[in-house]
């Protein structure tokens, strides 16, 4: 892939990731009694970058999305939580993908579990209390569900995205 094309694709995926994150912010798809759980659709774009481009581009997209959504509608604490979640999630997804032992769903669920675990750990450290961990079972179950959904969505969308990327390759 040409350098300019790579840059353009990185930009498109970053914009889509930001838009999907914003959509969740506008229309909270929460479950009553289970606050704070989000589907994490933006991760579909991070994973698409992981498969179409590479780890570096995926990291750039993840960081850009976190910074921009923080500037647009976040607080400082949310920035810290987001970075912890984003970094560990990407590391785990990269490891699972490299192992070649898992499909899209496995990579996606692994990323979601890592994201939620990192955020609750960061929250416990910042609040100086381990009690936030009582919420871990809820977050793990949510990660299994949202991770599976996102993995299946990526599996459905990636072949089409690959075709578009390749058809314009000169």
């Amino acid at each position, binding site marked *: 892939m040409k350098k300019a094309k790579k840059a353009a694709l990185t930009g498109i995926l970053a914009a889509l990731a930001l838009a999907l994150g914003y959509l969740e912010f506008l229309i909270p798809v929460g479950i009553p009694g289970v606050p704070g759980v989000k589907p994490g659709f933006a991760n579909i774009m991070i994973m698409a970058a992981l498969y179409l481009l590479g780890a570096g581009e995926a990291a750039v997209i993840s960081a850009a999305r976190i910074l921009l959504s923080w500037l647009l509608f976040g607080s400082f604490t*949310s920035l810290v939580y987001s970075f912890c979640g984003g970094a560990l999630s990407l590391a785990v997804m990269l490891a699972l993908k490299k192992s070649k*032992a898992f*499909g899209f*769903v496995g990579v996606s*669920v692994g990323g979601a579990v890592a994201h939620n675990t990192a955020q609750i750990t960061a929250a416990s450290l910042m*609040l100086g209390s381990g009690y936030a961990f009582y919420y871990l079972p809820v977050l793990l179950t949510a990660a299994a569900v949202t991770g599976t959904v996102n993995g299946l969505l990526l599996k459905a969308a990636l072949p089409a995205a690959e075709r578009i990327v390749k058809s314009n390759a000169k």
Partner: protein
Amino acid sequence: MKGNAKRDLILVASVVLVAAALFCAFRVSRGEGTAVEITVDGKVYGTYPLDDDREIDVDGRLVVSIKDGRASVVSSSCRGGDCVRERAISRAGETIVCLPGAVIIRVTGGGEVDARV
């Protein structure tokens, strides 16, 4: 890819199993609570008995209501308002956490576990 799909399924199943095991472990270790401890920025703000109905303004950040032996957040100045949507808590060890406000509301007493998870 067949083997991968199988491993994906095993991964998802293990995550759900771990969650269920943790949930049961946390549940069993909890007795009925006696009081509510409110922590702000990591420091104890106050402790209030659960059998005493009242509303507590926590540092202007949120309002906690204690009613019929259960504590809940009735309003919050934070943006998300996740803490307001949390269910009321009454069992020892149960918590409501407001991340933006750095407030933790925790039920104490009963068969509370000393160990911090």
